[in-house]
């Protein structure tokens, strides 16, 4: 499969300064890092220039963060580093005393850590945290620093900066925290800012704001090293891109070149795996070498046969402050046999709550849900129990949905036993469990593995296998891929579409990732503050969004094409 | 072999004033009462009518003289004149009579009462300096009995006008010291009575106390107590741990006092259980080397006492009876065989399917010290060899006080002592129980009319020699019937710093006397 032809080749290269205009600020040559005896960074070289952004991309565990931390001398315990050269504006970073490192950190290099939401001290005021580099490097007096912190917060676009400075991180939303962290990193106007995954876990709208912010400091002449595994994010900001894989840089070039005309297979593989409207109805991963795959035929949706009908469902929660909050507000929808109904919406908009009501795991405050046209959500639990085999769920976080004591085999045979065709013997249960595992691309050797020892993608697949075991006609998928990186995500999405095509399963598919939703859904519900504000055919919603919120969501969505 | 007095004066220069720090063991809840722990401290504050000297002779104290009527039924005491309680009221005949009435009729002091019962009849003030005590029957031991600390004379005015709390914490007497402050849990601070005039005839100097204060500390832990002396924080300590006694003898003035009365001896339950059979009781007595056990447990400091009825410091002690039941396992085995107890599994004897089990209940920490418990453990091991299965059951003070182990169904043997200066203690312990008058002090539940009669005769016999013979006979009866088995006398071990002279012990119960003591430079 080739790169999507729709990728816009024009880009906006012209806006960026000419690649060779400025001298290198940072030069890294042949950097190697070991943890114990394992080498995790295997001799990489790159350069960063003032006013330009170098992006390091690559899948999880490829060594991006380790490289970044090494640049500020904080590789970590038990680590060993060697490099032919690490040079920051004439200063040799390979030989620095602890004391001189301290004077470089924060002043010459600003660092935004990967885990933004927990990178501010929860117990201290935001203003103090932002001003900390100022204090550490002897900038101004206490009062001036406080003022400066407010200015910085204002500069990174934090509304009501005086108030925010007096609040503590837990009182701020994720986006505000991320911005405060950036404010702290650029407080002393360092020559180099390293931002490690500055936008993961942010809603698309907030993500856009953060990227704008970094773009702004780039225009002021700061050199930025951006680390991300999200290529569409990179496309928006980077001038150069280094693709890392297993500790090596496999491809390095201008953003445009790497994202639109990759030379390395791996880069291509990454690009392909990104779900979007263009990938609908296709496999995201190339079929294994040697197998040829015919065009897949999508099973038609049976519009006459609604399997789930939610009618005017509302849910009110009483908070610890004794205030009632309507979390799901008059939600109605139908899910038809063989259909995928996508639900999108920002965090806290009531998606999971809706899913749990649909599964009758949570009682609705008002309204009800029908299953195959029969009462379902408001019948006694004893009566609903036999019906449960018809509807399954894949949890957002599969790991916590497994009893940590049970190995995969037991999890599956337990699920099999609840189905309509419970296995009659141990041997049969085992055999069927193995078949399930094979279906999701695992094998019998995983039967005895504890869920904890599985990788994220494997866990997700076991969760799917469990959902499939009772052979339900309906599966509720709550953010099934949010925790996975693109390649594993692609693997999982491919499996789900395959199952739908083969078995005619219906999905209620929840995600906040518009690309994923667009890739899998036939129809889409958009939720905001508990209400469905828009619903319709996937293409209609994406192409002609009616509701202003949906429109905002879509414009904020970064596109590869921006590179 | 008691030596109550360790002061050899001379050498260094005496000093007037100073504070004696005395480390005692137990803290009583009130200063005055019928517990020996109370007698120790109230002896400092309250004076008695008469006292006893080292030879056992009765000597004047508040009473300068006394006459006994020929029928032995009335005692007329002449009081020292001009003596005042520390509240300023006079120590007159009326006050003495009131005190006797308090003890006998108003639960003033149960130990005082039980010593006089049933002989006491009434007390009457003849004039301010003469008081007459009338008895029901002649009771020559009466004088000796009232030398005990329980008979301290208190000011009736104070007693009646003050609250119970004040009477409990600061009894008013005419003694050499008075209570200044009681820091509960720590110490009682005694200050000298500057107007003291009523020292006993046994006093070593005339006049108020030489030191200004006595800090009467309570230090329950033996190691700390002895250490307080070795580090110089205390000048006198009570109950030196026996393992430190040799050291104390070298470095300090040691005083060992054997308290007269019933020694620590095992009272055997004759009413229920294995010890209803005399042969078994005798076998029990023969079955263990009590002498060696006492020697080991107390590191040779406390003597063995073979006489269960009275100890060697008590007048009319029967030394002959003390020789009975030497350690003889062969004899013990023979007696048990004769009684029908046969050796069974693991060497424990059985009879009719019942094991020869002895529940030995003892007051842990308050009747027996740790050393005493060691003695029990040694004995237990030896008794095992003759086929007794002895179960040691420690009773906490709470259990003891609550009377949990006081009925015949609760134990087979229990060690107990009774400090008393007179052989008349035999009556307290061995008076038979009758419906009308149960004797709960008779822990062997042993009713023996012959024994009762002998003791009663002895108590009323006015001829001292005859009385002595009767008391000795009574001891022999107790021993012959093996209703109690002797172990060791209640012994007090004091150590006094070398620079403190003239600390001596009162004869009847061994309370330390600080009114004559002085420091030297």
């Amino acid at each position, binding site marked *: 499969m080739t790169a999507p032809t729709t990728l816009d080749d024009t880009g906006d290269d012209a806006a960026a300064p000419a690649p060779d205009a400025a001298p290198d600020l940072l030069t890294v040559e042949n950097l190697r890092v070991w943890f114990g005896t394992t080498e995790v960074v295997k001799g990489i070289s790159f350069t960063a220039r003032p006013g330009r952004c170098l992006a390091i991309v690559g899948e999880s565990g490829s060594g991006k963060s380790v490289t970044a931390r090494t640049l500020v001398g904080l590789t970590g315990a038990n680590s060993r580093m060697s490099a032919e050269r690490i040079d920051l504006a004439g200063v040799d970073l390979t030989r620095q005393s602890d004391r001189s490192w*301290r004077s470089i*950190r*924060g*002043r010459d290099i*600003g*660092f935004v*850590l990967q*885990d933004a939401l*927990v*990178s*501010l*001290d*929860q*117990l201290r005021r935001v203003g103090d945290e932002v001003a900390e580099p100022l204090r*550490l490097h002897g900038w101004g007096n206490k009062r001036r620093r406080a003022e400066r912190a407010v200015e910085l917060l204002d500069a990174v676009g934090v509304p009501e900066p005086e108030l925010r400075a007096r609040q503590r991180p*837990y009182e701020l939303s994720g986006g505000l925290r991320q911005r405060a962290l950036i404010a*702290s*990193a650029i407080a002393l106007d360092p020559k180099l800012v390293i931002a490690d995954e500055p936008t993961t876990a942010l809603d698309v709208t907030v993500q856009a704001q953060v990227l704008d912010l970094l773009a702004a400091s780039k225009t002021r002449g700061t050199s930025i090293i951006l680390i991300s595994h999200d290529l569409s994010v990179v496309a928006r900001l980077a001038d150069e891109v280094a693709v890392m894989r297993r500790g090596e840089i496999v491809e390095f070039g201008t953003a445009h070149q790497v994202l639109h005309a990759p030379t390395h297979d791996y880069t291509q593989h990454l690009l392909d795996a990104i779900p979007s409207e263009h990938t609908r109805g296709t496999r995201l991963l190339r079929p294994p070498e040697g197998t040829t795959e015919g065009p897949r035929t999508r099973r038609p949706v049976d519009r006459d046969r609604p399997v789930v009908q939610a009618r005017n469902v509302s849910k009110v929660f009483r908070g*610890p402050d004794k205030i009632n909050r309507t979390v799901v507000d008059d939600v109605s929808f139908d899910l038809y046999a063989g259909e995928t109904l996508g639900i999108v919406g920002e965090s806290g908009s009531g998606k999971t709550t809706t899913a749990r009501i649909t599964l009758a795991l949570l009682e609705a405050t008002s309204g009800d849900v029908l299953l195959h046209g029969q009462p379902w959500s408001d019948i006694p639990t004893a009566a609903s129990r036999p019906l449960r085999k018809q509807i399954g769920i894949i949890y957002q976080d599969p790991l916590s949905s497994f009893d940590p004591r049970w190995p995969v085999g037991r999890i599956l045979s337990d699920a099999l036993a609840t189905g309509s065709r419970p296995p009659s013997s141990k041997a049969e249960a085992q055999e069927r469990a193995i078949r399930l595992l094979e279906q999701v691309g695992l094998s019998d050797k995983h039967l005895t593995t504890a869920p904890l020892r599985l990788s994220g993608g494997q866990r997700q697949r076991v969760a799917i296998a469990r959902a499939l075991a009772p052979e339900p006609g309906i599966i509720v998928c709550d953010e099934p891929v949010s925790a996975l990186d693109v390649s594993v995500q692609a693997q999982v999405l491919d499996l789900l579409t395959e199952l739908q095509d083969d078995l005619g399963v219906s999905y209620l598919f929840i995600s906040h990732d518009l690309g994923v939703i667009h890739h899998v859904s036939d129809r889409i519900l958009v939720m905001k503050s508990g209400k469905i504000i828009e619903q319709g055919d996937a293409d209609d919603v994406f192409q002609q969004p009616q509701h202003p919120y949906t429109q905002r969501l879509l414009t904020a969505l970064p596109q590869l094409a921006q590179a | 072999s008691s030596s109550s007095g360790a002061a050899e004066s001379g050498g260094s220069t005496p000093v007037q004033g100073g504070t004696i720090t005395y*480390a005692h063991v137990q*803290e009583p*809840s*009130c200063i005055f*009462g*019928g*517990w*020996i*722990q*109370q007698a120790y401290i109230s002896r400092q504050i309250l004076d008695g009518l008469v006292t006893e000297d080292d030879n056992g002779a009765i000597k004047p104290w508040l009473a300068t003289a006394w006459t006994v009527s020929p029928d032995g039924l009335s005692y007329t005491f002449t009081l020292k004149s001009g003596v005042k309680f520390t509240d300023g009221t006079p120590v007159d005949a009326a006050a003495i009579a009131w005190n006797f009435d308090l003890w006998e009729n108003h*639960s003033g002091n*149960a*130990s005082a009462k039980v010593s006089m019962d049933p002989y006491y009849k009434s007390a009457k003030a003849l004039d301010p300096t003469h008081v007459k005590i009338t008895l029901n029957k002649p009771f020559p031991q009466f004088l000796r009995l009232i030398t005990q600390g329980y008979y301290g004379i208190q000011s009736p005015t104070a007693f009646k006008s003050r*609250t*119970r*709390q004040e*009477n*409990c914490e600061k009894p008013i007497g005419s003694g050499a010291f008075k209570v200044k402050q009681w*820091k*509960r*849990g*720590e110490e009682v601070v005694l200050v000298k009575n500057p107007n003291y005039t009523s020292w006993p005839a046994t006093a070593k100097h005339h006049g108020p106390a030489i030191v200004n204060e006595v800090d009467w500390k309570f*230090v329950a*832990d033996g190691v*700390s107590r002895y*250490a307080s002396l070795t*580090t110089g*924080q205390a000048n006198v300590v009570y109950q030196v741990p026996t393992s430190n006694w040799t050291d104390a003898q070298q470095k300090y003035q040691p005083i060992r006092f054997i308290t007269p009365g019933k020694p620590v001896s095992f009272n055997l339950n004759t009413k229920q259980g294995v010890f209803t059979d005399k042969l078994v009781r005798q076998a029990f007595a023969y079955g263990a080397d009590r002498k060696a056990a006492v020697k080991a447990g107390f590191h040779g400091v406390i003597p063995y006492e073979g006489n269960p009825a009275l100890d060697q410091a008590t007048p009319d002690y029967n030394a002959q009876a003390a020789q009975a039941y030497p350690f003889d396992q062969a004899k013990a085995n023979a007696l048990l065989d004769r009684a029908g107890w046969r050796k069974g599994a693991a060497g424990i004897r059985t009879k009719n399917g019942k094991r020869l089990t002895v529940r030995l209940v003892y007051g842990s920490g308050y*009747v027996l010290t740790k050393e005493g418990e060691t003695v029990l453990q040694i004995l237990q091991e030896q008794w095992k060899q003759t086929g007794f299965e002895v179960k040691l059951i420690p*009773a906490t003070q*709470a*259990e003891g006080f*609550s*009377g*949990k*182990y*006081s009925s015949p169904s609760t134990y087979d043997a229990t060690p107990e002592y009774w400090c008393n200066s007179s052989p008349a203690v035999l009556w307290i312990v061995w008076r038979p129980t009758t419906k009308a008058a*149960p004797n*709960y*002090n008779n*822990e062997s539940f042993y009713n023996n009319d012959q024994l009762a009669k002998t003791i009663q005769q002895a108590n009323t016999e006015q001829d001292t020699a005859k009385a002595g013979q009767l008391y000795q006979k009574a001891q022999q009866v107790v021993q012959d019937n093996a209703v109690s088995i002797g172990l060791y006398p209640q012994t007090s071990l004091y150590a006094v710093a070398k620079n403190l002279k003239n600390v001596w012990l009162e004869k009847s119960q061994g309370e330390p006397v600080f009114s004559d003591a002085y420091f030297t430079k």
Partner: protein
Amino acid sequence: MVIAAASLTFLAQLLMPGDRATALMNVQTGQQKRWTAAELAPVNKEFGFDRPLPVQYLHYLGGLFRGDLGTSYTQHRPVTQVIGGQLAPTLILTLGALVTAWVLAVAITVLTVKRTRAVSALGSTWEALTASLPNYWVGVVLLVVFAVKLPLFPVIGGSNAWGTVLPLATLAIPLAGFLGQVTRDELEKVLDQPFVTTARTRGMSDTAVRLRHALRHAVLPAITLSGWALGALVSGAIITENIFARPGIGQVLVTAVNTRDVPTVSGIVLVVAVAYVVANLLVDVAYALVDPRLRGRS
């Protein structure tokens, strides 16, 4: 809750086997025998033991609300006075021990956590060792070493400052080990937190990172446990007061339990319960001071 604790104790003791009047007579005479009804009658009358139990209980409860804890059976004075006189030494001892333990625990953890292998091992071994030390053993050993063999401290120091040093150490050392273990675990975790790394990327020194950022987070579990530790400290105080012949509630309690002095035992339980409630309030306050996240809640 406080009243419930005292009532429960009072009732439990009333229902305990054994007669209170007998116990009192025996306490007064140092015996352990039975007494005749005639001998017991005056005692029963004086303390009202002859009244039905519910009446006695209601009477006690009524007193409680008037702030009257009753009169000690054995000391013949108000329980408030019995306890009042002994409260200060115990409070000084327990609170002093708590503070000392904190200082020790914090100092040792901050100095040894995540240092070189040897130093860290030393710190954690010290904590594990001291946390396993029984109070009484520490007490006896300290007494023998520092008061008897090397007479630096008084053996029978009573309640003065110098005499408080050893009892304080007796209570504080095991507690410091315990708090230290908890703080160490937490500090180890916190030092791995991203916000700590962030602080380092700003150029902060290791010591500053520990003191300014990490410590505050690391002490939170130990603060929570301090409320619980109070119960352990009171238990420890009973033992410590016993060894060092120190006045205090612990000694009174043991005696009162032994002599079945019901009002005194109940009174002490009441005081301990109050102390427990107060301590937990203080813990909450301290927690909220250190962790403002809790302030908004509840």
